[in-house]
C-alpha cells in the first residue's frame, strides 16, 4: 500500500478519530496470539496422546504402496520352478485364465524362458543352469546355489538379498524374486483385470469387436440361451467383481437413505406442530415433544444402528430404522424452529375471516414453512446417502458392509476402488437432484 500518500498531520488525525481501531484493548490484541499458542499446545498434547511417533515407526509403509497400486493395477504372477531336468512354468491364482500364453513370456529353448518387463532391456532369463537379470540393458548373472541365491558382482541398487532370495526390482512393471527352487515373477499391469468377464466365461479374452460379433452373428456358446443373455449373466455374475451384488448393495444403501429420511420427514411434520410453542398452547406437550426430539437426536445414529442390527438381523431394515430415529429428532427440531419463527400476520388474516384452527394452520402456517421443511428434508436425504454407507459398515447392510469385507481381505483394493467410484457417482447425482429441487423450492418463494 505504498501508493497511499498521507501527511503526518492527516495520519495523526485519523488516529485520534478512530482510537478503537488503532488502540485496541490489550485483551483483544492478545486474542490471536493466545489462540495460536493454545492451539499449538493442544497439537503437542495430541501428538503424544495419540503416540504419533510410535505409530509412524510401526507403520508398514511398503504395504501402503502395494495397496495403493492395487487400486488401479494388477499383477500377473508366474513361477518358474527348477526341476531335476529343467524349468517348469506355473501360475498361481492366475487372472489370465487356465492356459495363459502372454506375449511377455517367451520360450527361448526347450528348458529356458525369458520374462520381459517393458521391453528387452528389462527382463529376466531363466534356464536350468543360469538366471540372468537384465536391468537397464546390463546383464547380471545371478548365481543360484543349493543354499540360496546370491547377489552378482556389481549389483545395482535395484537388487537386494534377503534370506537367500534375490529380489530384482523393475519399478512399476514389477519384480522378480530368485530363490534356490524357483524364480517368482510379479508383472504389474495398469487397469482392472477381468472387469467384464472372468476366466470361466466364454467371452473371456475377447475385445469389444469380438464380443459384438459373438452376440450378433456368432454361434451360441450355450445352446440353452442366446449369447446376449449369456453375456449379461457372465458380466453380472463375474466371480471377481460381483457386479450384481455390488449394484444390489448400492441400491440397498440408496433405499436406506430414501426410506429413512422420508419416514422421518413424514413423522416429524405433525410432531413439530405439537412441539412449537406458538402453534399448540399445551406447555407440557411442547416440552415433552422437544425433549423427545433431543433424545432421538443425541442417541447417536451408530447406537440406533447397532441396536436395530441386534434386533432385526443384518440388512437394510436396521439402517432404515437408525436413520428414521435420528432424523425424526433432527428434522423435528429444525421444523419446530421454523414454525416458531413464522410470520403471525398471515395466520391472523386467515383467522379474521372466521376460519377453523385446522384451516388457519393449513393456509396461514403451512405455506410459509413448507419450503423450509422440504429443503431440510432434501438436505438430510442427501447427507444420509453418504452416512448410510458408514452405518452399513457396522452391519446395517448396503455397500458399507461390502466395502468393509473387501478391505478386510487386504487384497481386493481394486474392488474397493470400484465401489468408491460408484458411491462417488451416486452421491454426485443425488447432490445435484437435491440441490436442483431445493433451489427451485427456494426460488419460487414458497408458493
Amino acid at each position: 500500500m505504498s501508493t497511499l500518500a498521507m501527511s503526518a498531520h492527516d495520519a495523526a488525525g485519523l488516529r485520534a478519530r478512530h482510537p478503537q481501531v488503532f488502540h485496541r484493548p490489550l485483551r483483544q490484541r492478545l486474542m490471536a496470539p493466545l489462540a495460536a499458542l493454545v492451539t499449538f499446545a493442544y497439537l503437542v498434547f495430541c501428538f503424544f496422546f495419540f503416540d504419533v511417533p510410535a505409530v509412524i515407526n510401526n507403520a508398514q509403509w511398503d504395504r501402503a504402496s502395494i495397496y495403493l497400486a492395487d487400486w488401479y493395477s494388477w499383477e500377473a504372477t508366474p513361477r518358474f520352478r527348477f526341476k531335476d531336468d529343467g524349468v517348469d512354468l506355473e501360475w498361481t491364482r492366475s487372472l489370465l485364465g487356465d492356459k495363459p500364453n502372454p506375449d511377455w513370456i517367451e520360450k527361448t529353448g526347450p528348458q529356458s524362458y525369458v520374462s520381459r518387463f517393458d521391453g528387452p532391456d528389462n527382463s529376466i532369463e531363466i534356464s536350468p543352469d543360469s538366471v540372468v537379470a537384465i536391468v537397464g540393458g546390463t546383464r547380471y548373472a545371478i548365481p543360484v546355489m543349493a543354499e540360496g541365491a546370491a547377489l552378482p558382482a556389481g549389483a545395482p541398487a535395484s537388487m537386494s538379498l534377503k534370506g537367500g532370495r534375490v529380489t530384482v526390482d523393475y519399478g512399476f512393471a514389477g519384480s522378480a524374486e530368485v530363490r534356490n527352487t524357483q524364480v517368482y515373477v510379479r508383472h504389474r499391469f495398469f487397469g482392472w483385470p477381468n472387469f467384464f468377464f472372468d476366466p470361466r466365461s466364454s467371452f473371456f479374452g475377447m475385445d469389444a469387436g469380438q464380443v459384438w460379433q459373438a452376440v450378433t452373428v456368432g454361434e451360441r456358446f450355450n445352446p440353452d440361451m442366446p449369447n446376449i443373455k449369456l453375456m449379461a449373466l457372465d458380466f453380472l455374475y463375474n466371480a471377481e467383481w460381483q457386479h450384481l451384488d455390488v449394484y444390489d448393495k448400492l441400491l440397498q444403501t440408496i433405499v436406506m437413505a430414501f426410506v429413512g429420511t422420508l419416514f422421518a420427514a413424514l413423522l416429524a411434520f405433525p410432531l413439530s406442530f405439537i412441539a412449537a410453542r406458538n402453534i399448540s398452547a399445551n406447555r407440557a406437550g411442547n416440552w415433552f415433544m422437544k425433549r423427545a426430539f433431543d433424545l432421538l437426536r443425541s442417541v447417536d445414529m451408530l447406537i440406533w444402528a447397532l441396536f436395530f442390527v441386534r434386533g432385526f438381523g443384518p440388512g437394510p431394515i436396521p439402517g432404515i430404522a437408525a436413520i428414521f430415529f435420528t432424523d425424526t429428532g433432527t428434522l423435528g427440531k429444525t421444523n419446530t424452529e421454523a414454525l416458531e419463527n413464522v410470520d403471525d400476520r398471515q395466520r391472523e388474516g386467515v383467522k379474521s375471516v372466521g376460519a377453523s384452527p385446522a384451516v388457519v394452520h393449513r393456509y396461514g402456517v403451512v405455506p410459509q414453512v413448507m419450503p423450509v421443511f422440504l429443503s431440510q428434508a432434501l438436505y438430510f436425504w442427501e447427507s444420509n446417502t453418504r452416512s448410510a454407507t458408514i452405518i452399513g459398515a457396522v452391519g446395517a447392510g448396503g455397500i458399507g458392509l461390502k466395502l468393509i469385507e473387501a478391505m478386510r481381505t487386504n487384497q481386493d483394493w481394486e474392488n474397493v476402488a470400484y465401489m468408491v467410484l460408484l458411491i462417488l457417482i451416486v452421491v454426485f447425482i443425488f447432490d445435484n437432484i437435491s440441490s436442483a429441487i431445493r433451489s427451485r423450492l427456494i426460488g419460487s418463494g414458497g408458493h
Partner: protein
Amino acid sequence: MSSTTLPRRDAPLSNELRAVHEHYRGLLRTRRLYTVLGGLGLLVALGASLWFADSSNAGEFFDRLPYFFDFFIHFQPDEPMEIVRALFDLPSPFADGSFKYDYEVGRVYLSGDLYLPEYFYQMLVTINIAVISTLIGLVFAFALSFFAASNVTGSRAVRFAARRFFEVLRAFPEIVIAGMLVAILSIGPIGAIVAVSVHTIGALGKLFYEVVENADTRPDEGLRSLGANWLERVRYGFVPQVLPNFVSYALLRMEINVRASTIIGAVGGGGIGEVFRLSIGRDHAAKTYAIILLLFVTIIGIDWISGALRKRLVGQSAFQFGG
C-alpha cells in the same frame, strides 16, 4: 372494489379478467397435476423400496419384530447399579472371571490410586479425534475456500478445481480412508483422524466459500482502489468479515465430528465407538448402557457448549446445519 357491495361470485367477468381467470385456473390445474404425479411417484418409489429392503434383509420385518422386543427384554443388566459400576470401573458383585464383569480391568491409572475409568478415557480419545480433525479441517478449508469463491478468485479454472476438490473430499467414503490407514498403521485413532479430517475439509470448504461469496465487497473495493495485492485483500477485506461465521461453522462441524468419530471408531478407528460395538456384540448389557449414557451426556454437553459459543459469535442465525 371501492363500492361496499362485493360482486357476486357468478357475476359475468370482463374479457380481460376472464383471460386472467382462465390462466390462473390453468396454472392451478398444472400445479395440482404435478403434485398428484409427484405424490404418486413418491408412493411407488416408497413401495418398491420397502419391498426391496424387506426382501434383502437377513430377517424379514414382521417375522423379526417379536424377537426385537425379546432382545430388549433380555438385554438388561443384572441390577441397575451395574450400569454405574461399569461406567466407573468399580468391582462387580457378580464377577465370575468373565469379560462381562471385568470392569476394573480397563482402568487407566494416572497416578497412585487415581484412575480414569476406561469409558471416560475412550470418550476422551473420541472427543480428541473430533477436535483435532476439526482443527485440521478448519486450517485447510480456510486456506482453500478463498480459491473457490467467485468474488475473490477470478480464474474460472481455479474455482472449478477447488470446488470439485471439496466435493470429492466430501463424498469420499470415510470408512475407506480409515480402513486403508488401519491396514497400514494397524488399529488406532490416526486412521480415524485422517478420515474425519478429509471429510471436514470438504464440508467446511463448501460452507466457507459460500460465506465468502456472501461477504460485503465494499472493504475489498476500498483495498483494491488503494492497490492492495491479493493476499492483503483477503487478509483485510474478507477475513475480518467471515471469521465469526467460519468459527461458528467449525464449532457446528465439531458437534458432527464427535458423532462421526464415534462411528468411525466402531469400524476400526478406536475410541468409544469400538468398545461400544464390542460390548453390544458380546451381549454385555451393563457396559452397553453405561456407554450409551456416557455418549448421550457427552453429545448433549458438546452441543450445548458449542451452541452457546456460536450464539455469542454470530447471534441468532447460529442454528444451521452442515453436511
